[in-house]
């Protein structure tokens, strides 16, 4: 059984989570969140893959050619764009946090609360 892509998913997820937990900088934290989310793209495309199948575009190949699952591809594609916008929103929060508290260290920010 070929499981290498799923091992890659686990590795990307673990690396991203480790970064999230140990982060000392909000921008670094947001980048780690992107890494965590990237693991879902690999997983989605991985579960939809069919050995030897074509891309689900039938412009220049005959209809009924075996093709990979288009649903997971559609999910991944909208997700990438939405993620970029949400990342911008998080970075905007980081800018405001820096303006208010003068620090971008999440562990210091927790101590400032109260």
């Amino acid at each position, binding site marked *: 059984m070929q499981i290498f892509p799923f091992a890659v998913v686990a590795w990307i997820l673990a690396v991203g989570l480790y970064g999230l937990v140990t982060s000392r900088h909000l921008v670094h934290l947001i980048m780690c969140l992107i890494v965590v989310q990237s693991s879902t793209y690999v997983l989605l495309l991985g579960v939809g893959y069919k050995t030897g199948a074509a891309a689900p*575009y039938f412009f220049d190949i005959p*209809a009924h050619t075996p093709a990979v699952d288009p649903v997971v591809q559609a999910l991944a*594609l909208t997700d990438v764009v939405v993620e970029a916008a949400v990342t*911008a929103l998080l970075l905007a929060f980081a800018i405001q946090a820096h303006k208010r508290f003068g620090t971008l260290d999440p562990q210091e920010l927790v101590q400032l609360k109260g």
Partner: protein
Amino acid sequence: MTPGQRRWAFLIAMAGLAAFYLWGLAGLPGFGTYLGPYGNVINRIAVAQAKATGVVSAVNFEYRGFDTLGEEFILFVAATGVATVLRRLRDERARDASGEARDEAMDREAPPTSGAVRMVALALTGPTVVIGWYLASHAQTSPSGGFQGGVVLATAFILIYLAGQFLVFERISPAGVTDAVEAVSAGGFAAVGIAAVVAGLAYLTNFLPLGTTPGAVSSSGTIALISFFVGLEVGAAFVLIVGELLDQTLLLRQGSR
């Protein structure tokens, strides 16, 4: 919680996660063995039913159109959120915007953009617009669609910023116009759905003529129309976000904290 404790808590949680992941993996078919019927069914029927050869777009804008409407509004809300969070605070005023953005931390001029960067950015602007337009208008044909096309179109505006200055960027994408384009195109997607309801069909039913040649630009009815609206919405949202972030570099704070 000290960093050490945090790391231990993380390792314990990861061990649990790894156990569940391996358990789940044991139940998955191996990579490359696709079991679900859904993807196969859509691949089989989409070309004949929706007259679209780009099945991913057919899924996005037709079969799961309602879901994409939700995704599009997440994007809309995120862009609105950026504009709201980065609104001017009471103790901030705009820097004299006649010059280029400054390096605020060191209180010195940002180095001027080199001639090479300006030339490359200018030369790439035209092709970028063409590619973005092509992507946004060929959702039903090839690997493209409004999401990709919109991002590429927004890139053209960023190239113009690179070639010129922030003032030029603001002049070619005034916030009012960008806001209006974003709102109208986000609403346009929803309105296409409502138009189907007015015609007596279910929400987001493909009510336009489908054409006869699968994959032709004029084929596939509302797929092309929705993709066009999504392209405008995504492009405007990213221009808005980039503009807001660039605007931050022009802010001066009165009194430092």
